[in-house]
């Protein structure tokens, strides 16, 4: 089962994005796709809960946690006034998501992705300071290290990393002992080790010749699948004006060693600029791959040569 966030928006994006959404009637939604039954297609999951507002719901990063037979989803949401992380429970029978909780904090500026560690705890990437899209762009261009990795310890958000540069995608390693963070504009894949006090120490940094976005873990091998943007200026133009500008797509697989800290090799699973624009994430299940994009379509592939 694959959960997908759709309809990204927020003060971070330029006004043309809102026009692009209005044309196709796009709203913020969470969808479901079953890689075991791809013929079923993509289905929207209705969100229930009286504390939940659909109005300014713009979901971004997502993380799944299975606990005691229940499936919880943690989603980064860009609301009009601030960014939040919202927790849902997946009700399989009715295909609904029950909204359970909204997490807010003063340290939260601009969130991107989330990685759940427990029913009330998670890591999240605060990837910049400015929520305004012009200032965010400048922050990126100048190269300001205004972001941090945050940890919600059950009560509040705390900063657990050194200042980061555009750290966006985040996920836990297969054995849960390391935290993988991706710096998109920094073109890096970073491996952190959580200490006893939940602080993160950086133990490895790998330069990639592309702009990586979100990482997912292959549950069998522990390898990391990255949705990437190989041509930087094109994805920037595409996000600014999705209806006329096109961007290239790429999916890389980083082969990790037993310790989960070193990258032993890189395989390119997808490289395309004609059919799919702006690949941001990919997941692999039994030779089937689903590739998601920021604001274009999704692609379902069979992986035969690895």
């Amino acid at each position, binding site marked *: 089962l694959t959960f997908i966030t759709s309809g990204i928006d927020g003060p971070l994006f330029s006004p043309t994005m809102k026009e692009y959404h209005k044309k196709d009637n796009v709203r913020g939604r969470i969808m479901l796709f079953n890689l075991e039954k791809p013929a079923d297609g993509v289905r929207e999951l209705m969100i229930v809960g009286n504390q939940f507002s659909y109005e300014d719901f713009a979901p971004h990063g997502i993380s799944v946690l299975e606990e005691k037979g229940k499936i919880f989803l943690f989603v980064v949401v860009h609301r009009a006034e601030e960014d939040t992380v919202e927790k849902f429970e997946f009700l399989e029978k009715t295909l609904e998501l029950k909204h359970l909780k909204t997490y807010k904090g003063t340290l939260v500026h601009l969130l991107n992705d989330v990685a759940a560690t427990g029913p009330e705890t998670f890591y999240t990437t605060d990837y910049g300071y400015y929520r305004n899209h012009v200032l965010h762009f400048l922050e990126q261009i100048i190269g300001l290290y205004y972001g941090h990795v945050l940890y919600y310890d059950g009560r509040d958000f705390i900063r657990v990393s050194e200042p980061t540069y555009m750290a966006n995608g985040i996920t836990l390693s297969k054995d849960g002992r390391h935290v993988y963070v991706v710096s998109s504009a920094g073109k890096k894949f970073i491996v952190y080790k959580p200490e006893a006090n939940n602080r993160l120490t950086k133990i490895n940094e790998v*330069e*990639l*010749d*592309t702009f990586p976005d979100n990482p997912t873990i292959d549950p069998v091998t522990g390898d990391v699948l990255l949705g990437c943007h190989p041509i930087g200026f094109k994805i920037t133009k595409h996000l600014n004006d999705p209806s006329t500008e096109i961007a290239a797509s*790429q999916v*890389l697989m980083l082969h990790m060693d037993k310790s989960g800290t070193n990258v032993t*090799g*890189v*395989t*390119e*699973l997808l*490289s395309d600029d004609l059919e799919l624009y702006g690949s941001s994430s990919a997941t692999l299940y039994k030779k089937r791959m689903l590739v998601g994009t920021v604001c274009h379509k999704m692609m379902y592939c069979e992986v*035969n*040569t690895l």
Partner: protein
Amino acid sequence: MAAVKFVLSIIATVVFAVVMKKLATVWNVFRSPVIAVHAPGPCIRLEGAEGGSEDLTALPDGRVFISSGVISSEKGKILLMDFLDNTHKIKELQLQSDQNMSDAHYHGLSVWQDNEKGGLTLAVIMHRSSGEDTVEMFKFDEKKQILIHSKTVRDPLFYELNDLVLVSENQFYVTCSLKWSLLELFLHLRFGEVLFYDGSRVRVAAGGHIFANGINISPDHRHVYVAELLEKDILVYERQGDNSLVLKQTKYVDSGVDNIEVDPKSGDLWVGAHPRIGTLIYFMHREGQGAPSPSQVLKIKTEKGMLRDVIEVFLDDGGEIPASSVATVFKNRMVIGSVTSNPLLCDIKYSK
């Protein structure tokens, strides 16, 4: 006084700009990109060409001639492989000649089949131990499966020959990667040339190249393609009536392009390339020992002889095959040659 200072400062700025541009070019040449590997299908490593397979060319019937032994520690050989042979055996061809060919190091090769008379001519570049570069022409004896030496072509213009392409039984274009010395490369000077041998004389067909290496011709013989390794581009020349060449297109491909093979039906180019030129140079210096240089195969689609889309068909970090210099395709199977070792045979299942 002020006027002199002004002129001097202008000159200084110009010199500074030129130096910075040259430095930037050099930086681009030695850039080491991250290698994200991918293959178009399953691949197997062949045996029998341990001394290298720097250049190869296929006949329409699936047979492939391979030149081996470019690096100085290996003995030069000409080998034969057959795509239709399921055992993938590579055998060494015996050379019959009244000259001593034992100290030879072979480089680029080209084959010409005479469709009327049925003869097969093979021309190969030989680096002799004396330091002289010559072009050796052979006739292939089908019955005895040996190469009979027919001619040696020498000329004072022949210097640092790299690759050649036969346009008839006894005429060819050949690339000279340098004119005088390696110093040319450090100073980024454009002295490499393409020469034409018309059966009796050698003359310059085109000049001004930086390390011209691979050369080949379109199926209709109207366009000649030249790979410039250090410029990371491929030049398209239009062949004139007098066999001179006029430059029509410069296609930058951002990789150390080596040898070019042309698909006889589609006219597409198959190019063996070195993604990390710095690593290649160091790898060659160590004669193929130690950390391998990565490999890449590009397919370039053509339109009326001009180069269009570039598709990366194969990329490897050197683990499957190091330092790929050439590739050719026969019925959805591709053989990739390496400067320093055995070739790789791949099925092309997933590629545009």
